[in-house]
């Protein structure tokens, strides 16, 4: 059985209220599928951080989650400004979020580092002015 199951979500830009809805839905689905709680938590944190990033920096985007029996692959893609220096962006505490965003409690510079920490593999492809695609994989 190699078939995968795909969940697709559109992440609405500039809407902090609904940000995080996709990760809550994925959490529900993974629970129904019977994944262990720790895996579900890792997927949910990585996805939540990614969603928030897309809302803050890219005006929204799309989240696709491919579920296999042995792994879960999350692809987040947007048409935002892109990341000029990925190594810098990966540093804990580095953030380009505006003061407005920070006053909401976001923009602590932990988004990307957390996504890396909670996943087994993470790949960032980004073109300045075109957008960013982040692929994360968690092995079960």
């Amino acid at each position: 059985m190699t078939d995968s199951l795909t969940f697709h979500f559109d992440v609405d830009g500039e809407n902090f209220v609904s940000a995080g809805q996709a990760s809550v839905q994925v959490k529900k689905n993974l629970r129904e599928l019977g994944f262990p709680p720790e895996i579900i938590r890792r997927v949910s944190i990585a996805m939540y951080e990614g969603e928030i990033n897309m809302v803050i920096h890219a005006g929204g985007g799309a989240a696709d989650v491919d579920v296999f029996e042995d792994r879960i692959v999350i692809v987040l893609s947007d048409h935002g400004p892109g990341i000029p220096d990925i190594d810098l962006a990966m540093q804990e505490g580095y953030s380009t979020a505006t003061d407005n965003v920070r006053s909401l409690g976001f923009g602590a510079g932990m988004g990307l580092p957390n996504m890396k920490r909670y996943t087994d593999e993470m790949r960032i492809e980004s073109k300045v002015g075109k957008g960013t695609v982040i692929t994360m994989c968690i092995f079960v």
Partner: protein
Amino acid sequence: MDSYRHSVVLDVEKCTGCTTCVRHCPTEAIRINGGHAEINTDRCIDCGECIRLCPHNAKKAMCSKFEHYLHYKWKVAMPAPALFGQFDGLDDVDVVLQALLDIGFDDVFEVAKAAEFVSAYTRMYLKTEGIKKPVISSACPVISRLISLRFPYLKDNILPLLPPMEIAAMEARRRAKEQHPELNDNEIGVFFITPCPAKVSYIRNGYGDYQSHVDVVVALNDIYFQLLGAMKNPGQSGKKTTGSESGMIGIGWASSGGESSALLNDNYLYADGIENCIQVLDSIENGNIPQIEFVELNACIGGCVGGIMTIENPFIAKTRLQTVRRYLPVSKNFVSPDQSYIPESFITDSFPSYMPLAKLSDSMAESMRMMAQIQKLRETLPGIDCGACGAPTCRAFAEDQVKGVAPPERCCVVLQQREQQKENADDSQ
């Protein structure tokens, strides 16, 4: 534990199958089948929303009648602090305590008193090195059950102290034995006066391996009028109350925020209403909350004063409690400053084994196949979540179909579309 015994029961005669409860159940545990509601007991968390919302009063919580337990030689009443918010113009808790004696109890042990101990020990526990923060209150049984079904990752965050009701029950029994050494264990009855059905379920089923120390649960609204009568004519029984043993903190536990404010720091969050609580738990799981020490969650809006077995609106009850609390000392129960440990009998690490809510199948491959089918089927449904099929949402209906528990004909929109197509086909012939 073979099966969980819930306290919510349905009066089939009264149920019209109107779907109100189906659409509001936070765990999607209810379906309409054969014209009336059916509760999936594995999913039910005893929150009581269905009882609260049923327009036909077809749902009830099963409690015991005080009159049926008069055989206990020594009957101790344990009023939940929410009781004191139910009386108009009440400014002295003693009046209610006296009335409890007058209607037939031999002693009263306030749950608010035990709550003050829990508060003191919680303050102590929060200083322990290496504990998982935020600590989540263990007082609301709905939340405890919800965590065991849906947020198992947070189980180490739960305060390892027994809820005030249990501590009160143990202490009440201890006191009875001290005062009356001649009594046998089975001659002492400890009665909890409950504002909510979830406490009833907790007492019946225990929590994990823990078994409750409460003997009988009486609904608050069931003895309310008896109490009201006794309050008009105090002292009828010839017994005399020794007076309240709790202060502002203990009685404050009746409403949302009371337990938190008793921690005497400002590093806490409190939320009430089941949907809000679920959102907070989701956020804790995602690590998406500020650095806080303590989280108090109450399934009912307003906290325990919002329980469905109360009489008064939760906000009015809360205001009345402010009057009751006004002239009380902050707390009447203290832990000596020399004491640096929590008594072992107050601690529990019991936690029900994780039962994934709504797992589709035991085999993951099968679950994935089913979910793919559900997604496909869901797209053929109207998506208006009308509830006419008996399921809360089109998504849930698709799931029921794939599980083989609901026939596709139950969707009236799809049926109508089919009819229309048939007519069109007939016309064109």
